[in-house]
C-alpha cells in the first residue's frame, strides 16, 4: 500500500468557472476517496419567498442559474400555473418550447467547450464558444437578453416573438448545424480526445439508477428516460428521439450531449413550423392556494420545483431540486479509483452547475 495523502481541490480551480471543493484522498496517483464540500454559492434564495410575492419570484427563479435560467423560470411558472389552474395558450407553449430548446443548445455547446478546455484542447474550446454565440444572437434577438431573458411570467410570456423572426432562425440553425458538424466530428473521432474520454468514469445502468442520477449522465449509461416525454409545454406534439449510449463512460456522455444538440435543432424546427397564432398571456386572478411539484428536463437533467402556497400573496415554500444536486452522489462514486489527472474531466462529466445546486 502506498502512502496516503489528502489533496484539496478547489474552491478556486482553473478548470472550474465555479467554486466547489473536494478533498481527494490519494494513494500515489490513485484517488481512493473524494469528499465533496459545497456551499460556496449558497445564497438562500428559497427563503426569498418571504420577501417577494409570487409574481416577483419569477425573476428570482430565473436567477437560480445563469445557464439554465429559462428552465428554472419555466419550471417555477409551470408549477404556479398548475396551482392556480391557469391554462396557458398554445402559442405560449410553443414559444416556451422553442426558447427552452435554444437554451439547451447553448448549454450543451458551452459544456462541450469547457470539456475541451479541461483536457487542454484550447482551440476546440474557442471554436465551440464561437458557434455558441450564434445561438445567443438568436436568443438576444427574441428576448433582449443573452443569458438571462426575463421573458417569462406567470400565465404566459412578457413579449411575443414575431413569426418572420422565427423564420429567420431556421437559416441560422442551418449555419449552426454546419459548424457543429466539424466540432462534433472532432469530439467523437479525434484520437487525442478519445484517449482522454474513453473508459473514464464508467457507471453501469444499475449503478446510475441506484444513485438517483438524471439527464444525459443517466442516458449515457443506457437508461432511456427523458422528462420531456412527460409532455409539458408542447413536447407532446413534437417528435423527438431520446439519445442513449450504452458505454457509460465520459465518451458516452459527450456523445449523448452532442447528439442532443442536433435533436434540439430538430425540435425547434418542428415547433416553428407548427406554431399556432393566438394570445401570449392569460389573465392571472387571485393568489395561489395549494401545492404542486413540476418535473422538467433541464439541459443537465431532471429538475423538480415544489411550490406550496396558502392563498396569500407570498408563497409558503419554494423548493428546487436541481439535476447537479442529484448527480453529486454519482460524482463521488466515479471519482473513487480514478487517476488524479482525470479528476477535472470527471467533475465536468456531470456538467456541474454549482449555483443551481446550492441556490
Amino acid at each position: 500500500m502506498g502512502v496516503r495523502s489528502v489533496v484539496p481541490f478547489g474552491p478556486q480551480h482553473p478548470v472550474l468557472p465555479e467554486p466547489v471543493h473536494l478533498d481527494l484522498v490519494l494513494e500515489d496517483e490513485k484517488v481512493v476517496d473524494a469528499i465533496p464540500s459545497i456551499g460556496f454559492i449558497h445564497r438562500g434564495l428559497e427563503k426569498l419567498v418571504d420577501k417577494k410575492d409570487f409574481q416577483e419570484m419569477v425573476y428570482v427563479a430565473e436567477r437560480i442559474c445563469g445557464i439554465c435560467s429559462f428552465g428554472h423560470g419555466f419550471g417555477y411558472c409551470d408549477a404556479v400555473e398548475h396551482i392556480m389552474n391557469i391554462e396557458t395558450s398554445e402559442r405560449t407553449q410553443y414559444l416556451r418550447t422553442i426558447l427552452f430548446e435554444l437554451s439547451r443548445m447553448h448549454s450543451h455547446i458551452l459544456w462541450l467547450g469547457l470539456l475541451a478546455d479541461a483536457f487542454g484542447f484550447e482551440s476546440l474550446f474557442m471554436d465551440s464558444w464561437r458557434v455558441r454565440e450564434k445561438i445567443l444572437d438568436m436568443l438576444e434577438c427574441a428576448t433582449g437578453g443573452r443569458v438571462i431573458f426575463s421573458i417569462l411570467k406567470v400565465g404566459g410570456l412578457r413579449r411575443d416573438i414575431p413569426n418572420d423572426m422565427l423564420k429567420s432562425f431556421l437559416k441560422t440553425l442551418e449555419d449552426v448545424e454546419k459548424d457543429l458538424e466539424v466540432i462534433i466530428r472532432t469530439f467523437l473521432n479525434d484520437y487525442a480526445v478519445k484517449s482522454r474520454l474513453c473508459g473514464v468514469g464508467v457507471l453501469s445502468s444499475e449503478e446510475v439508477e441506484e444513485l438517483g442520477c438524471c439527464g444525459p449522465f443517466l442516458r449515457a449509461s443506457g437508461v432511456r428516460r427523458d422528462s420531456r416525454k412527460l409532455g409539458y409545454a408542447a413536447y407532446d406534439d413534437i417528435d423527438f428521439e431520446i439519445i442513449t449510449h450504452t458505454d457509460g463512460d465520459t465518451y458516452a456522455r459527450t456523445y449523448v450531449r452532442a447528439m442532443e444538440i442536433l435533436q434540439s435543432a430538430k425540435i425547434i424546427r418542428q415547433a416553428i413550423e407548427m406554431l399556432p397564432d393566438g394570445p401570449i398571456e392569460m389573465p392571472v386572478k387571485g393568489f395561489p392556494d395549494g401545492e404542486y411539484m413540476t418535473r422538467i428536463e433541464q439541459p443537465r437533467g431532471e429538475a423538480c420545483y415544489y411550490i406550496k402556497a396558502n392563498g396569500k400573496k407570498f408563497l409558503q415554500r419554494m423548493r428546487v431540486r436541481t439535476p447537479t444536486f442529484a448527480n453529486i452522489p454519482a460524482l463521488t462514486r466515479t471519482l473513487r479509483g480514478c487517476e488524479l489527472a482525470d479528476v477535472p474531466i470527471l467533475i465536468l462529466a456531470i456538467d456541474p452547475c454549482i449555483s443551481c445546486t446550492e441556490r
Partner: protein
Amino acid sequence: MQISKSPWLLHYDASSCNGCDIEVLASTTPRFDVERFGIINTGNPKHADILVVTGGVNNQTRMVLKQLYSQMPDPKVVVAAGICACDGGIFKECYNISGGIDTVIPVDVYVPGCAVRPEALIDGIVKAIAILDEKRSKQLIMKQKTG
C-alpha cells in the same frame, strides 16, 4: 515598461448565479476576444494582475476571496462584474449574502448589469488597465524616492 501591455486576468465566482461567469468566459472567446489587449485568463492568482469577481459575498467565500486577493502581486486591480458583485443585486436580501465584494476587498471598477454584457465588461477591464498603469507608476515613484 508598461504593465498594461499584457495584464493577466483571474476570475473568481464569489456567489454568482453563473450568468456573469459565463459572460466573463465569453469575453475571452473569439467574438469578444479580450486577448487582443494582451489579456490572458489565468487560473493562478500569483500570475494575475486583474481580479474579476462576480456575485455577492457569502460567509464561505469571504476568506477565499481575501486569500486570492492577498496572493496577487502588487500592483493589482479589482473589477466587480455584475450587479451582485457591486452591491448584492437581487440576492441582497438573502440571509447568506453580505452585499457587494467591496465589503471584503477594495474595488477599483464597478461594472453593473444582470447579467453583465461582455461589451460592458471589456469596457470595465480597459478602465482597470488604466488604473493599473497609474498604480504602477506611483509604485515606481515611491521606489525612486525611498531609493
